[in-house]
């Protein structure tokens, strides 16, 4: 299975003029991108602005994306450059880099320019309700479903790796992860339908 095959499908659609496919890429990576940008700027609103700018730059540069690297790797570079340029242009002085706080090991390591993100921006933090809903849903999952989704989302393992770890077929892993997501999504939808997060949905 290609590591980036679904992203590439969406990218190709955007390149053929389907802007809606780019929405899916934004939805998928906005959280990671904002988190990434928060290493460079403290202000959450500014981080969002930079992430937005990075997405727009990525869209404009998408005709040049050849698929030699993973889409997120490419997007990551754009976001980093956008954040650095923003920091320079706004004449912000770099602050101390705290290596202990870096947990996203799958991202390229970039010591220079990173900043401590010790503040917890209210505007960006998950609402307690969403977090507690998702966590409660995960706790309520059967062990095999919980293990599968956590190995996937937290450890970043592929289905094949999870299958090896759980001693089951890849198809079973796919099913377990899907059922875990469905169970969490049922609860999450209730929260969203209650009014929270409606702005997140694209109209």
């Amino acid at each position, binding site marked *: *299975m*290609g*590591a*980036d*095959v*679904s992203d*590439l*499908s969406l990218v*190709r*659609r955007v390149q*053929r*003029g*389907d*802007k*809606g*496919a780019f*929405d*899916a890429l*934004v939805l*998928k*990576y*906005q*959280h990671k991108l*904002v*988190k990434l940008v928060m290493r460079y700027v403290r202000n*959450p609103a500014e*981080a*969002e602005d930079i992430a*937005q700018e990075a*997405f*727009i730059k990525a*869209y404009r540069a*998408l*005709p040049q994306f*050849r698929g030699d690297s993973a889409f997120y790797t490419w997007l990551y570079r754009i976001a980093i450059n956008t954040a650095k340029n923003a920091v320079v242009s706004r004449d912000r002085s770099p602050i101390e880099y705290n290596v202990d706080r870096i*947990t996203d090991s799958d991202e390229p390591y970039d010591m220079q320019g990173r900043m401590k993100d010790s503040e*917890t921006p209210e*505007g960006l933090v998950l*609402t307690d309700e*969403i977090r507690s809903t*998702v*966590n409660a849903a995960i706790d309520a999952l059967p062990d095999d479903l919980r293990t599968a*989704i*956590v190995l*996937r*989302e*937290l450890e970043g393992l592929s*289905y094949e790796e999870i299958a090896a770890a759980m001693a089951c077929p890849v198809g079973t892993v*796919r099913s377990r*992860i*899907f059922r875990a997501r469905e169970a969490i*999504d049922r609860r*999450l*939808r209730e929260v969203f339908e209650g009014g*929270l997060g409606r*702005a*997140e*949905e*694209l*109209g």
Partner: protein
Amino acid sequence: MNEELDSQLSAMFDNELPAEECELLARRLSRDGDLKARWGRYAIMGAVIRAERGITLEGLAGRVSAALSQEPDLRGAQVSGRTSPSRWWQPLAGAGLAAGVAAASILWLRAQAVPDGSGAVSPALVASTANLNARATAPALRTVRAAAADSFVVPPVPRQPMMVVPATELADYVVAHSAFSWPVTRGNLLSALMVSEPGTSSTPLRSDQRAPGVQGNAIPNPK
């Protein structure tokens, strides 16, 4: 929403869906608002599990979408790719450039070979055209050919065995010219020559193979 579709969406989110299925689902995902919302919630779940803080409820995705609605779509844009027709000429251009440089080098070398009146073949021309074999035999051959040369055609490489000059003569030649070479190079060359000689391996030389004054495989001490 049917379960199979949702299952595919989940696999696609993880980049674990076969490419052909991805194509179809990507098309639907780009148009189906409910599917897109579910996709977005999958992203939120992952963010919560990873304890990411960058979850915004301020509508970043909506703002990006709104901003891009002002942008032209990319349908007409020139998309880069490995088989991009706009770059087909690049390998040919590279090969052409290399061939041009080679041709210029040959012409330059020929120009260097213009006779100086003595009728001798230019050393540069000889050096540039002779192969390793010819180099090994160069001292003897060059003298003969220089005397007979009446044109500046590149001398043909003799189709002869590797060592047309007897090894002992070649050794004499190297030793005779060693006064003009750097001692380290000279030592290496002599060592290589000695190693290439019969009897310099672990097999001892027969008495009739030994050069006069050289005992076995010993190399005379320059001191």
